[in-house]
């Protein structure tokens, strides 16, 4: 190119504007590789995002649906002060009880008509009842003197009626409605009647309360006493009534229906998150800890299902199916979740190893060293040592003595040793273990039956995303019949399983629980790329053993 130093710009522009340089072959490969991982991660995020979205939508719907039927949520139970704070959104009646467990019980019970407020009722030791009411726009505190209580009997069993309807209104917006009879024994005492009502669950002190039906008159309530000679319940006009218990140990108030005619007291079972029932027999739920962490270990039993990608390779996939057998593996993992009502959403990370036994016949090549002697025959003439003189006299016809050497032919045998290698093929049976190691991210939803009890059955299901980190597999080579370590199969790094499980959880206490559940995992796509002559899916059955910590 001609150089015109007066026009450097054009010189360079003309020379280099359309310059093309052939890139190295590795550039293309690197770009392909990076794009593969880019698309891979994009797909994973997309699928996880989609699943998370639907999970959130589903759980939100379920939460909304189930929560709409729950009217009372106990926000706080203070075991020390024996106060229960209840948020009553819908119903008109909240029952709040209090006691002094040390001595004779100073107690009261009120029923508060509360339309849209939060109420907190606390009984002080001086028998003053403080009621805090959080109205829509104002907060007021009213102290009700105990002198307004009409009757107080301090015996082993205390009967107190609190006709709060006649006392000072707590709040303008509140209207006290129902009368109740409260039966409050001392700690560790059993409520006794002549009908022998003996609650079974009396390891801790309890409060028994009976909700009285509306058609009882004030007089009947007031005259209704309860002690060892009298029966409170006999004057009931309704067939069923509620009796409530406060478990000091767990700060739980429980209400159970009791048949007022037979006076049979049901066995008490106290769910973790159930405070009790209000007078409308609606559940009052104590919010328990929502978050939890699981640690689990699971032996698993996995099986591979091979499927040919083209019918011409059916022989190979059939052979692999017949020769590959399930074997035990394991997985271990941790997860965290959030529970609400009977549902929980769970996300974790786990390490899994799936094994399968390969039972196949193959040809083993044996090399043998063999010593050979190579014999070589050499025919040689050996000169012997005998000679004689042939005498020749100088006379014509006479002989001339000349030495003649005699020789005889001998045969010598030479030998050389050679080492040769002999090859033999022997058919053998291989018992190898094919191993597949994954790091996995399970995202599951759980539904618990019998919530809050010692044994809680549950079912769960969800999606597991696995990233293949290592394989150790063997393959049968058809060309020479040899069995070799498989390094060429194009395994796909990520894969997905649907998981379904059902089991039971043993709640040791409010914090810890043990669980065991069998599960089945269904492989959604082949773990081998579609370019391979056959695909492979790994389906897994396992039993999960774990411990849950709730916080």
């Amino acid at each position, binding site marked *: *190119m*001609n*150089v*015109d*130093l*007066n*026009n*450097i*710009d054009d*010189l*360079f*522009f003309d*020379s*280099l*504007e*359309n*310059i*093309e*340089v*052939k*890139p*190295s072959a590795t*550039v*293309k490969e*690197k*770009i*392909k590789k*990076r*794009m*593969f991982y*880019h*698309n891979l991660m994009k797909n994973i995020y997309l699928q996880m995002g989609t699943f998370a979205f639907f999970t959130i939508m589903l759980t939100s719907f379920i939460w909304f649906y189930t929560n709409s039927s729950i009217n009372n949520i106990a926000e706080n139970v203070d075991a020390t002060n024996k106060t229960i704070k209840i948020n009553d959104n819908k119903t008109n009646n909240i029952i709040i009880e209090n006691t002094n467990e040390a001595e004779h019980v100073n107690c009261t019970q009120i029923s508060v008509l509360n339309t849209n407020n939060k109420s907190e009722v606390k009984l002080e030791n001086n028998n003053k009842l403080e009621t805090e009411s959080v109205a829509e726009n104002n907060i007021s505190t009213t102290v009700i003197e105990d002198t307004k209580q009409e009757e107080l009997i301090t015996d082993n069993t205390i009967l107190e009626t609190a006709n709060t309807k006649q006392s000072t209104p707590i709040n303008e917006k509140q209207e006290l409605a129902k009368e109740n009879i409260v039966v409050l024994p001392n700690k560790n005492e059993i409520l006794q009647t002549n009908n022998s009502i003996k609650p079974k669950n009396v390891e801790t002190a309890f409060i028994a309360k009976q909700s009285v039906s509306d058609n009882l008159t004030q007089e009947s309530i007031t005259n209704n006493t309860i002690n060892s000679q009298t029966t409170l319940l006999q004057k009931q006009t309704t067939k069923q009534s509620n009796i409530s218990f406060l478990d000091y140990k767990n700060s739980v108030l429980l209400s159970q229906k009791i048949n007022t005619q037979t006076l049979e007291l049901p066995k008490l079972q106290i769910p973790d998150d159930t405070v009790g029932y209000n007078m409308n027999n609606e559940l009052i739920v104590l919010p328990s800890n929502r978050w939890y962490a699981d640690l689990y270990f699971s032996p698993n039993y996995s099986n591979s299902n091979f499927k040919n990608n083209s019918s011409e390779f059916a022989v190979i996939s059939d052979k692999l199916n017949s020769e590959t057998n399930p074997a035990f593996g394991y997985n271990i993992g941790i997860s965290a979740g959030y529970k609400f009502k009977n549902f929980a959403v769970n996300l974790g990370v786990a390490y899994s190893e799936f094994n399968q036994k390969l039972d196949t016949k193959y040809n083993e090549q044996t090399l043998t060293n063999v010593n050979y002697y190579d014999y070589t025959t050499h025919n040689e003439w050996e000169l012997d040592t005998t000679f004689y003189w042939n005498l020749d006299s100088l006379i014509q016809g006479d002989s001339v003595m000349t030495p003649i050497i005699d020789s005889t032919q001998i045969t010598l045998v030479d030998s050389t040793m050679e080492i040769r290698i002999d090859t033999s093929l022997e058919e053998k049976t291989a018992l190898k273990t094919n191993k597949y190691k994954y790091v996995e991210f399970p995202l599951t939803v759980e539904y618990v039956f019998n919530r809050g009890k010692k044994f809680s059955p549950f079912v769960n299901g969800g999606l597991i995303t696995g990233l293949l980190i290592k394989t150790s597999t063997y393959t049968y080579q058809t060309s020479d019949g040899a069995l070799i370590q498989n390094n060429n199969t194009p395994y796909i790094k990520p894969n997905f399983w649907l998981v379904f499980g059902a089991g039971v959880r043993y709640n040791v206490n409010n914090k810890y629980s043990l669980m065991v559940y069998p599960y089945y995992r269904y492989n959604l796509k082949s773990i081998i790329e579609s370019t391979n002559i056959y695909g492979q899916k790994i389906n897994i059955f396992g039993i999960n053993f774990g411990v849950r910590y709730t916080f």
Partner: protein
Amino acid sequence: MALDIKIIADCKKGKSYAQEQIYDLYAGAMLGICMRYAKNKSEAEDILQEGFIKVFTKIDKYDFNTVNSFSAWMKRIIVNTALNYIRDNKKHNIFSDINEENTESLSYEPEETEQSITISQQEILQLVQELPEGYKLVFNLYIFEKYSHQDIAIELGISVNTSKTQLFKARKLLQKRIKEKINSPKKKIVSLV
């Protein structure tokens, strides 16, 4: 090979064959651009790789209907990638600013005589590659990408005067090196008998 709009559409869907075709079609030209900004081929290939990754991942932002300007769109991405690459790999300011008053006196002085000497394309490319980074960036953007000094100043975050200065110095340096190249005696190969 002409670029089919279907290839761009398939590339938007992430199909590898389409990505491969686009690469095959444009890799040579794009590497030529990268070579102007890089010091050597290895560095240029790094820029090319980053550039194509951006092209493939951002292609959904490219408007289908302007397929004719696809190469220009791609070139724009490659140039930006090159600029970012140089910025990211330089620890210090690559532009040596000069005072404004000095820039007034700077002007491009043509050589007095025209010399009819030839120089290869490879040598010209090498001259650009060997320019200091600041000179090289401004020279490339001004000469090849047809940026104005105002645009260069915005793109590189420098003043207009700095851009002018860098361009001036780049031209002078290139002139000087071309002269040196022309005047340098050719190497002789001596064979020993």
